[in-house]
């Protein structure tokens, strides 16, 4: 393990990601054909990420901060492997436990117990592995006897607790948390933080996306400030967060000149 310490776990090499939003409502195949024949198929290109370089080594705890629409969630999806970068290279070593939303991968008609299997299998676990950890997952979720009732009867906090228990039951190589801890009460938050520290000691690398600057300051070893899809700053949490807060308070006093992300209208076939 130790000789791999310096090897990057996550490597993003000038990653750019473009959402192509059709200008016309292209909900239907008929409209698509009409526009294609007329050569009037235009798209708005929205670059959610541009030239992002990121190298994360094992055991780091990287906080990602930025205003709404900065590209934080897109970045999380690229690291997870859900979205393929339009340009550039992505490389992630080992298993990933993405918690982009604690309610993802649940079937509300099934019981909490049945959902443990469904959810963990979606995270790429084998059935035998789940059997091994079943007790501890139920224990950590604190759901008690409710584990055998359908989760449509759960509160959102209960679903979130179950989701977190499942995703962190195994030590992943990379743990990605996107605003996931915003739900849940203070006591559960405390347990989550303890669990995250344990995972880190066990060798996990963590990416934490949050607006809670205090939490990032306390927990992260490093912070990345993302704005309009570009990395603005990358370094020790104290420095990055101070600069970020300063920029944000300035933006509040000075009217924003470029509120909308740059976009270009490009005509295909034209």
């Amino acid at each position, binding site marked *: 393990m130790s000789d791999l310490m310096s090897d990057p776990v996550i490597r993003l090499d000038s990653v750019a990601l473009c*959402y*192509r939003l059709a200008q016309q409502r*292209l*909900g*239907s*195949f*008929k409209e*698509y054909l009409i526009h294609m024949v007329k050569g009037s198929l235009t798209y708005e290109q929205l670059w959610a990420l541009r030239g992002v370089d990121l190298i994360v080594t094992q055991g780091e705890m990287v906080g990602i901060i930025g205003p709404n629409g900065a590209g934080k969630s897109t970045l999380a*999806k690229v690291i*997870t*492997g*859900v*979205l*393929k970068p339009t340009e550039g290279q992505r490389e992630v070593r080992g298993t*990933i436990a*993405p918690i*982009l*939303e604690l309610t*993802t*991968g649940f*079937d509300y*008609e*099934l019981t909490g117990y*049945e959902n443990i*299997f*469904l959810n963990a*299998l*979606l*995270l*790429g676990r*084998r*059935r035998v592995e789940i059997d091994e950890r079943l007790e501890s997952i139920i224990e950590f979720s604190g759901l008690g006897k409710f584990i055998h009732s359908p989760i449509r009867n759960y509160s959102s906090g209960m679903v979130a607790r179950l989701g977190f228990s499942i995703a962190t039951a195994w030590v992943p190589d990379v743990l990605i948390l996107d605003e996931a801890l915003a739900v849940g009460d203070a006591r559960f938050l405390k347990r989550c933080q303890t669990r995250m520290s344990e995972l880190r000691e066990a060798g996990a690398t963590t990416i934490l996306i949050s607006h809670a600057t205090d939490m990032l300051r306390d927990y992260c070893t490093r912070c990345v400030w993302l704005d309009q899809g570009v990395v603005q700053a990358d370094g020790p949490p104290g420095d990055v967060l101070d600069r970020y807060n300063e920029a944000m308070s300035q933006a509040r006093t000075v009217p924003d000149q470029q509120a909308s992300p740059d976009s270009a209208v490009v005509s295909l076939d034209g």
Partner: protein
Amino acid sequence: MHELYKYRDLIKTLVIRDLKVRYRRSAIGFLWTMLQPLLMMLVLHLVFSTVFRFDLPNYPVYVLAGILFWNFFQQSIITSMNSLKGNAPILQKLPVPMAIFPLSTVISGVVNLALAMIPLFGILIATGHPLTSTLFFLPVSILIMAAFTLGAGLLLSPLAVFFSDVIELIGVVMILLMYLTPIFYPVSIAEKHKFGWVVTYSPVRAIMEVFRDPIYLNKIPGPAMLGVSTFVAVAALILGYVVFRRSSDRIPFYF
């Protein structure tokens, strides 16, 4: 392929989930799978044996085998077509191989078909229909049916994500195909008509006969039917695989 094998436990769980969720809140549960084709058979039997009079011995077996084929064929194609769209929240957030979803819907279709065949055997016995060893050919027939519908699902599920009207279109095509396939009428009726060849040489009919012949005619399907159905099944599977592979990177962008 390798990826899919790694996720075999997930596929199994999704199939069981499908079956569980389908019947969880119904009073008689999975008995519906068996009852629905029987009621359908009863209705068609009443209509076509008394009102129209087809020249078909043991019409209930003829029509029930056809209904079982059609239910599988249609439901398998429609549900696998919708499977990516329906699982959008998962596909937006978790890196799972997407082909798992159309695949598991086709597998649960096969399980449903197997359940629905239990009353078919009841009808065979009740009507005194001969039970011969040709019934052992049925697993091959079902494999061909499953391969074709999986191919169709792999082809249509990305298209359904890109264009919402594909779902409407296929719904209409399915109704058309149902009438163009000799499920509840004999092929001899179509053959009298100028455009009867559409029915006679339909590949869907070939796939159906491969399933119905061992049950109704007590014979192994002939080389023509077997050849055509195997060919279209393999072709659909290859086409579906190619389209699915080429479009899977773009799918999460369209949810």
